[in-house]
């Protein structure tokens, strides 16, 4: 069950503020500082996902990925097998909205995915990886160490 149940109106313009924030932190404090904030977000904001992953349980992570990409009308494919979760995002809703607003996606835009995912997996048997294949197109992979 999701810790943060969200099912009412969406304010997609928040993607614009996230984009501005990614640039601001990277420009003023460095990319490593930005990664630190995003990892902490993964660990602490998504504490319930993090704690479940530490116990080997990916159920909330799966629900989180599926619900929020679905909710924001992303084009994606979620594939699950024992010890492995693969989310291929064909059209990222955040980048799509930035383009709709006429904003240039931050060069750090994909860190919000890779570092938050990494934060959720920290000190757990799960590892995350993000391959960016093009603008708005990525493959997010979560692999369990023992493969089970």
């Amino acid at each position: 069950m999701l810790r943060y149940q969200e099912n009412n109106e969406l304010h997609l313009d928040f993607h614009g503020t996230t984009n501005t924030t990614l640039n601001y932190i990277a420009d003023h404090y460095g990319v490593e500082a930005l990664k630190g904030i995003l990892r902490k977000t993964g660990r602490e904001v998504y504490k319930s996902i993090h704690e479940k992953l530490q116990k080997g349980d990916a159920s909330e992570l799966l629900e989180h990925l599926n619900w929020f990409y679905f909710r924001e009308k992303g084009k994606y494919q979620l594939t699950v097998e024992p010890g492995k979760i693969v989310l291929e995002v064909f059209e990222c809703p955040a980048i799509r909205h930035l383009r709709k607003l006429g904003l240039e996606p931050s060069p750090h835009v994909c860190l919000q995915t890779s570092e938050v995912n990494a934060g959720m997996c920290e000190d757990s048997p799960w590892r995350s990886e993000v391959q960016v294949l093009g603008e708005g197109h990525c493959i997010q992979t979560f692999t369990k160490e023992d493969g089970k």
Partner: protein
Amino acid sequence: MIPSDHFVRFYNEVFKFLDERDGLQPYYEEISRHQEFHCLKEFREKGLQGVYEYYQKIRVEENCILRITMEKDRMVSFMDRCPSLSKVLDCDAEPCAKYCEHCSGWSIPLHTKAGIYYVENMMGPKEPRCASVRTESRAVAEQAVADFLASGAKVEHIFSNLDRWEEVEKNKKEGRRP
């Protein structure tokens, strides 16, 4: 992607990071410049009506419980349930003690550029509600501050651009619609 639903919980992490480095104010100014993209033109050209229209959209999209009334010389709003602070309080990560200040932090520079006075009673950093008055009249704004204080508001919870009144007046003359 950080879901747009969860942006404010990320924002809260950014505030804590910046507050530890005494870096909140310049960041608010950057966010304010970003917000200009969304609403400065409407605020400048339509004045209070532009502010009203923007907040009607925000009321729906951000799921606010927000009452807004337009009077002859002011727009008065009561945020009975702020979705932003509510989410931050409903979060496994610790809330930033200054979380609410971001609202006046970005709003004051933007309203000042639009030639509009902004007066906010934040009420309290752990209370997801606030009240505000927007007006083009310096006298009305000063009265709003006095009224908030008379109603028991703490001085440190009142935010306004009255200290920038010359800039507000200048921008009002230069930027207002025909």
